[in-house]
């Protein structure tokens, strides 16, 4: 029975449910900016924020896991043992249920983005070890790896390494010196994002080859160059998070110099823009392609922003402001989520024709996601720049009054967030509905 289950799809379905829940908590958390007393004495922002962040982060990690499982099974139908994948999923479910119940009971204990009690990190780490074992078991049988297998392997290994590093603080030695502790914390946060990006960008390369029906992307020298540049940044660019922290100079300089190599990615995107536009016209009705093209647009915007933020002279105006939030939202929704939707549509149903009556509404939802995310992103950036000017110019205005002056931008981001939530929820529900329908019809046959 267990062998008949498509675990790639099951992982995707579970991940989509987490995204649905995550965006609801995100909207509730954003409303606190408009009305600070909202749920103050019940859940409060201290629970709403981690509920949103953790669930959305888990959507990305589990979506990335689902992409690798599904991709490897397309390469080799016998890839991944069903029993270990089932155990992997069960461990994730146990951890996530424990984490969510903990948040509702105001039980924290972890660090930013991983606020849950560290005990729940254990099933996640074991599950990830099983994933690594299963992946290597299949991948090592393949000769001459295409770039996406390299990227998946790198992402899986570095996620495990940085996830363990994320818990070094448990040992008092690592908390003795506050600056070192903060340095390691932000080293971890930078590299963890880089590691899941490796898996997700690897998925984008894999999907491009599937769409084109060849191995052009997988074996091109340019793809390998981009992979190694990405890996180099994953390892060494995190210093750009801590320019204002009085840590060693060399850490900040390494972060700065390595971050500037991202100009190469940026120039490449601008250079290939024209051919991309031609391809969009010919593949518009093909959902995976359309979502990948949408992610390209968001890569352009967010990478441009990231490179500017990585220049220390500009960073002091954006650090500790909503520009950082805009960047986080732009990358996780605009890039990660778009590529994961492309993967979902690939593995569930690729073409617009499949969705029959839902097709028109899917089109509308796609465009509402893009437009509302753009408004959301711009309003957060404006709020952030205004706060940045306030903090650099030594203003006599209090923090409370400064936050009040940002209210129109907080309202814009919350209301555009409502549209974003509805449209993303529609995409999730449509995919899940067709998934359930296909299972029911399979059973009936």
């Amino acid at each position, binding site marked *: 029975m267990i062998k008949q289950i498509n675990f790639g799809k099951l992982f995707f379905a579970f991940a989509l449910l987490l995204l649905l829940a995550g965006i609801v908590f995100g909207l509730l958390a954003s409303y606190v900016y408009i009305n600070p007393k909202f749920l103050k004495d019940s859940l409060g922002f201290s629970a709403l924020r981690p509920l949103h962040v953790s669930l959305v982060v888990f959507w990305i990690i589990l979506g990335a896991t689902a992409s690798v499982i599904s991709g490897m099974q397309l390469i080799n139908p016998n890839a991944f043992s069903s029993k270990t994948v089932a155990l992997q999923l069960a461990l994730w479910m146990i951890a996530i249920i424990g984490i969510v119940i903990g948040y509702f009971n105001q039980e924290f204990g972890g660090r930013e983005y991983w606020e849950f009690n560290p005990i729940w990190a254990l099933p996640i780490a074991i599950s990830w070890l099983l994933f690594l074992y299963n992946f290597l078991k299949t991948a090592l049988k393949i000769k001459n790896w295409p770039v996406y297998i390299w990227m998946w392997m790198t992402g899986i290994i570095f996620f495990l390494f940085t996830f363990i*590093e994320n818990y070094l603080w448990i040992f008092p030695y690592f908390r003795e010196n506050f600056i070192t*502790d903060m340095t390691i914390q932000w080293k971890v946060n930078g590299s963890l994002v880089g590691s899941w990006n490796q898996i997700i960008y690897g998925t984008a390369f894999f999907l491009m080859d599937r769409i084109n029906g060849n191995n052009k992307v997988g074996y091109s020298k340019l793809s390998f160059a981009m992979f190694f540049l990405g890996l180099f940044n994953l390892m060494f660019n995190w210093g750009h998070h801590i320019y204002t922290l009085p840590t060693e100079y060399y850490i900040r300089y390494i972060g700065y110099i390595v971050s500037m190599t991202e100009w190469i990615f940026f120039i490449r995107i601008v250079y290939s823009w024209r051919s991309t536009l031609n391809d969009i016209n010919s593949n518009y009705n093909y959902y995976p392609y359309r979502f990948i093209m949408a992610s390209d647009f968001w890569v352009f915007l967010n990478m441009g922003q990231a490179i500017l933020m990585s220049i220390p002279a500009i960073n002091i105006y954006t650090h*500790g402001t909503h520009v950082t939030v805009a960047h986080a939202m732009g990358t996780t929704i605009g890039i990660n989520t778009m590529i994961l939707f492309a993967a979902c549509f690939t593995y569930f149903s690729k073409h617009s024709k499949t969705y029959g009556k839902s097709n028109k509404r899917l089109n509308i939802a796609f465009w509402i996601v893009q437009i509302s995310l753009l408004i959301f992103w711009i309003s957060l950036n404006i709020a952030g720049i205004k706060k940045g000017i306030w903090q650099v110019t030594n203003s006599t205005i209090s923090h409370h009054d400064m936050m009040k002056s940002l209210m129109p931008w907080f309202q814009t981001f919350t209301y555009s967030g409502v549209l974003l939530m509805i449209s993303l929820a529609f995409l999730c529900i449509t995919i899940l509905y067709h998934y359930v329908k296909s299972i029911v019809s399979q059973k009936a046959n």
Partner: protein
Amino acid sequence: MKIKPIHIFIVLSLSFLIYSFSIYIHPIYAKPEANINIEKAISGRLVWQKYNCQSCHQFYGLGGYLGTDLTNIYSAKNKGEAVIKAVILTGNDAMPAYHLSENELTDLMEFFKQTNQSGRADYNNFTIYNNGMIERK
């Protein structure tokens, strides 16, 4: 010898490991902070995490953006231990009251003392160099 992806991967990974371990050993040769009860300060960091203060507050601009940066709250004008404790225990407009034990409060204050001694977190005191780098004046 032809350079293969595995060679680049190994070189980069080893460099990353060396870089990581060079950072892990910092506490061994870091200058000890004066007048800090380090045991209490490192417990205070756990109190900070237990109540998830980071969801709203920041150190050096790192954290949540609903509340203020607390790096130098310990020495801030019109603040100090008594005011901080009062705000924590009674709450304010946006912040609920937190019922910390006496020990937790003491540890948290020691932690704030430690963050305060680690440096300044204001942004209006930097020199900007021609290469784009910044340095605190």
